[in-house]
């Protein structure tokens, strides 16, 4: 994966207050749909609910991020050909030129390509971009429900083979 700046963990609450946060995570000149989807929850609540879900499943966020990053890289190296990244889970990468900045200031820019992970058995799928992975890694932000790049933590952990 390209262009991820070094992640130094920082609670997102420190970055902006609630109103600013909804604004910077909404649709912008860089992201058509923004990062919140139709989720009515406060961004902090989205993050704490997802953190609680992962904790309840016994999945370490760092381990999930690491597994997702390796799976993303494997798909990127296949240049668009399908790759099996865990039992029954196929990843297809779609490369793109250009970069998108993080919605949070001072976090750099990220390649625009994306990888779609699909579970053959159920058809369940999610899309991952270098930016969405950065947001999960740095802020524990899996995005709001309805965002095209929302990653359901339990679905991702299951598809990556971290839980049954």
């Amino acid at each position, binding site marked *: 994966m390209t262009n991820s700046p070094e992640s130094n963990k920082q609670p997102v609450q420190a970055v902006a207050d609630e109103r600013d946060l909804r604004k910077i995570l909404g649709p912008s*000149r860089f992201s058509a749909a923004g990062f919140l989807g139709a989720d009515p929850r406060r961004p902090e609540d989205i993050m704490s609910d997802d953190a609680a879900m992962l904790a309840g499943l016994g999945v370490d966020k760092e381990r999930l991020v690491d597994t997702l990053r390796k799976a993303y890289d494997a798909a990127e190296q*296949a*240049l668009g050909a399908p790759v099996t990244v865990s039992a029954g889970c196929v990843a297809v990468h779609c490369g793109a*030129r250009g970069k998108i900045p993080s919605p949070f200031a001072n976090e750099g820019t990220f390649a625009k390509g994306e990888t779609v992970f699909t579970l053959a058995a159920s058809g369940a799928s999610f899309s991952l971009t270098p930016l969405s992975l950065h947001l999960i890694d740095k802020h524990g932000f899996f995005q709001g429900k309805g965002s095209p790049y929302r990653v359901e933590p339990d679905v991702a952990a299951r598809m990556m083979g971290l839980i049954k």
Partner: protein
Amino acid sequence: METAQAPTVAIDINGGKKIIRVKPGTSLLAGCARNGLFLPSACGGNARCGYCKVKVVGGATPPLAAELPLLSESEIAAGMRLACQTKPVGDLAIAVPDELFSVKRFSGKIARKTLVTYDILGLSIELTNPKTIEFTAGQYIQAKSMSYLGRDAVLRDFSIASPPSDSSGVDLLIRRTKNGIFTRWAFDVLKEGDAISFSGPYGAFRASESAAPMLMVCGSTGLAPIWSILQDLVRKKCNRTIRCFFGALSQKDLFMVEELHKLETGLADFKFIPALSSEPESGGWTGERGLITEVVRRNVPDCSRFEAYLCGSPGMINACIAVLTQCGLPDARIFYDKFA
């Protein structure tokens, strides 16, 4: 009554090639634009895109915190700064690529819009003001979308696919990006006859003047600058050895194949090698198969004499650099658009 002259500071650009005066505290980006020097920018000067980098060679102050994520350590050490965040309060000297002096703003209209594949659009822009453009084959422009569906206008970069000899306009190849703002507008809203504006030309990707054999590797709309370079080389009657590899998944992702094969007679020593990585065996494809990197390695096991010209997604570029390096090609002879 005497009016006091507002104080200004001097910005020396490229060792006296241009000297402008701006009010202290004005950003370099805005000050340069007001004086006809258009530095690249895609975020409106908000320290988000990292496009507006300039080298400060005299009078520098340390970079601000907002600049740090967009500048590498080596760039900081070399004096690079974001022009949108640099607000000189004293005289300053900066260095920018010489080609930025010829960047202009253009208005044009869409003369032709065609679907080249299911996800790639060909756009021909005819210039209205100014009426001609000068550029070097391989360069790109920054086009502006109109606002639509409540979305703001945005700026995005696109390589010029037409040759510099066609100075009355530019051709672009635009691939639909999932959930993309500009590309959705270009595919679904923009019509033939509509007005469009852009600035340019930008970028240092171009054919060298050397006589070394050329290895071109591209995928999808990465063909755009390569096609511009190739047409230019035909016009210049270039007799260099050129091997042009185009990587795609399946036959439905191929385009301009006939035009590229035609160059095998138009150029002294040119071969076009399209390669498919996921084409079904039943598809009747008799050409090369496999990842483009494997195909390059198979066809040119020793790259050491070549210069490589790469254009495509970051994944493709990284994979190609790894293979070309293994095949003996030094870094200094591998060219690609670092911005992209």
